């Protein structure tokens, strides 16, 4: 009997140790965050500030800008990269356990939750006293995202991104297809993709898109056909409506001439594109550097996202071409020991000087309007103007609610859009998936 009890206990500890993972993950982040809190006592000037980000592409540029700030402040800055999935696990554990990194990025997926629970440093008083920050200069959607309904500001807009079409000139040449232009509709994209897929007899796919390519993919079709994934009040959706269904029907047709779902789920659209297996993908501006530094980057070129000619007059109206935009925010932990220095760093990142540096170095486009022109020239030999031109048409802010990941994940999986993605020939299935998606989002919002 003793042996039995011991085994049961062992079994229990095995499984419950899983939950302990979350806790121990927190201690991992605390050790990285403690660098600054070494100097005890509030108000004491920190010796160094720990900055956590998730994008390794940006680390070098951000560190350089931060070093510039160090020249005047004398406070050292360590920029550490934690990959996207672990970033949020660590941050959440840090917020629950009490030790977060000092300064870090916020994202539309989770910003609401963090702002409501007062784990972020309130920036209002600092902004008021700061002559370098003028809140009216930032992109509306990004600014609103990090402002709580009671008017408190918890993060300053770091950047904004847009979406464009990426194509491989070598593949287009090989199968004698004309390059994408800014007059392309989604139907033109379909025709081109079809020519490539059929011309290569399935060896190369005309286009590829996974269900997880939402912000940089199928969301844009829904909006250009007049639908909305999340309505402007963040309380509902029209994804099951006729406009959204028209957009997803176009998506379905694209899928019939694109890479099958089983292929993109295993290899990823980026890798497929870079290995010359796919002619076109849609991509966000945060990915430019990956393609700019890729082996065959001379073959790659960007174009404006196609539009939906809804009124049938053959030209692109402002509200017929939509690109998602999203913006990260620079936030600080509410428990930070030296809030003055942390704010000063955030302020520098988001000031006109910092924002212009960020664009010049090709890190990202700015969160402030009118500072991003230099970004277009940051990648010598690659024309990335389509990302800036997208702003001449319509932009929508990346759809978010309080707990975005809950419905966003569900939409990518079986029971929602994974089914029609798997069988793109079945038009009925896509329409049904839109209805399911409507219900998934509504239920998720209700449960928030």
């Amino acid at each position, binding site marked *: 009997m003793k042996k039995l009890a011991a085994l049961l206990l062992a*079994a*229990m500890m095995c499984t419950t140790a899983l939950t*302990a993972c979350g806790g121990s993950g927190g201690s991992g982040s605390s050790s990285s965050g403690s660098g600054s809190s070494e100097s005890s006592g509030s108000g004491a000037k920190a010796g160094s500030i720990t900055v956590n980000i998730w994008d390794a592409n940006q680390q070098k540029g951000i560190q350089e800008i931060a070093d510039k700030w160090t020249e005047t402040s004398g406070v050292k800055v360590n920029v550490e990269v934690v990959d996207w999935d672990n970033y949020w696990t660590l941050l959440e554990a840090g917020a629950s356990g009490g030790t977060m990194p000092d300064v870090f990025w916020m994202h539309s997926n989770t910003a609401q*939750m963090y702002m409501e629970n007062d784990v972020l440093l309130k920036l209002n008083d600092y902004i008021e006293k700061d002559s370098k920050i003028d809140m009216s200069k930032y992109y509306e959607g990004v600014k609103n995202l990090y402002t709580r309904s009671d008017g408190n500001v918890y993060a300053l807009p770091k950047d904004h991104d847009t979406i464009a079409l990426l194509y491989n000139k070598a593949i287009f040449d090989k199968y004698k297809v004309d390059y994408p232009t800014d007059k392309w509709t989604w139907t033109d994209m379909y025709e081109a993709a079809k020519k490539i897929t059929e011309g290569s007899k399935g060896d190369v796919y005309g286009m590829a898109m996974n269900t997880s390519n939402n912000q940089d993919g199928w969301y844009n079709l829904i909006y250009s056909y007049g639908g909305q994934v999340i309505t402007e009040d963040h309380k509902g959706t029209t994804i099951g409506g006729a406009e959204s269904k028209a957009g997803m029907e176009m998506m379905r047709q694209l899928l019939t001439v694109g890479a099958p779902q089983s292929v993109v789920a295993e290899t990823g659209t980026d890798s497929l594109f870079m290995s010359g*297996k796919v002619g076109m993908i849609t991509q966000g501006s945060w990915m430019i550097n990956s393609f700019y530094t890729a082996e065959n980057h001379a073959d790659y070129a960007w174009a404006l996202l196609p539009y939906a000619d809804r009124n049938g007059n053959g030209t692109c109206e402002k509200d017929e071409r939509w690109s998602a935009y999203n913006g990260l925010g620079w936030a600080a932990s509410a428990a930070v020991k030296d809030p003055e220095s942390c704010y000063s760093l955030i302020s520098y990142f988001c000031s006109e000087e910092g924002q212009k540096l960020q664009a010049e170095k090709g890190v990202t486009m700015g969160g402030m309007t009118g500072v991003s022109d230099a970004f277009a020239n940051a990648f010598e030999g690659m024309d990335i103007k389509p990302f800036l031109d997208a702003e001449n048409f319509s932009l929508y802010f990346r759809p978010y609610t309080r707990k975005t990941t809950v419905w966003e994940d569900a939409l990518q999986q*079986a029971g929602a859009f994974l089914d029609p993605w798997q069988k793109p020939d079945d038009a009925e299935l896509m329409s049904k998936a839109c209805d399911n998606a409507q219900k998934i989002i509504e239920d998720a919002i209700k449960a928030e």
Partner: protein
Amino acid sequence: MKQLAPRKKRTKAEKREAIWALCFIAPTIIGLIALNFYPAIDTVWQSFCKTGDFGKGNVFIGFANYAKVFTAGETWHSLWNTIKYALIEVPFGVVIALILAVFLNKKLKGTSVFRTIFFLPMVCAPAAVAMVWKWLYNQQFGLLNNVFGTNVAWISDPKIAWISIGIIGVWSVIGYNMVLFISGLQEIPGDYYEAAEIDGATGIRQFFHITVPLLSPTTFFIVQTRIIGALTIFDLMFMVMDKTNLALENTQSIVYLFYTYAFTNGDKGYGATIVVFLVIFIMIVTFIMQRAEKKLVYHP
């Protein structure tokens, strides 16, 4: 009635010894309490709560989470996936390891080299193992499809993905099981084999009539620990399967489901309930195994 022995007074030296003993085990005890017992109890508590963000504002809701877990189809589907995985990993992991152990227990040249090779997967980080296998299985560029000239979606075809995952599990665990078997084999006295040989028993007869019964306590131990290990599998599915993989539904383990709810969706209470559900299931399995021990294990 048993008579209570008069309490012996401890000498000073004994007291000191006891205090020192406590001091020495204190780090382990504190570690166990802080990292195992406290989270375990807290998990059970959370399973009765609608948990708030960042561990604040938990509201007690009784058995509501349990009602949801027990009625959700995905719970039972995931449990079945986990059992399917265990059905591959445990039998194959044990049988292959036993055969290897018997061969590597012989006094031949190079046994230590082979033992090391078979044990290596155990030393590798599970995440690294999963990444390598993910690329071996890749439909487009994977080594398997290229070598055999096939075009099989090893990890995206719902019909075979669970087997592919199970194979990785077997491969990873063979070395560990083998080492346990070898140590068990070395406890069997050589006399039995000598006697059997004189009586004219073949190698195969010796294996089934001496090795297998005398090794049964070791086998039972391995089977039992591996069942518990297989039921708590997570890393393989998490690393190998993409979220948008159609086969995920048919391979995701119950711990994966827990991860999705607790960490991706941020619903710690529901996640905790799934874990408690798993613990109860493992307890039942363990209980049955313990009952069966007397029948299955040979006690000379």
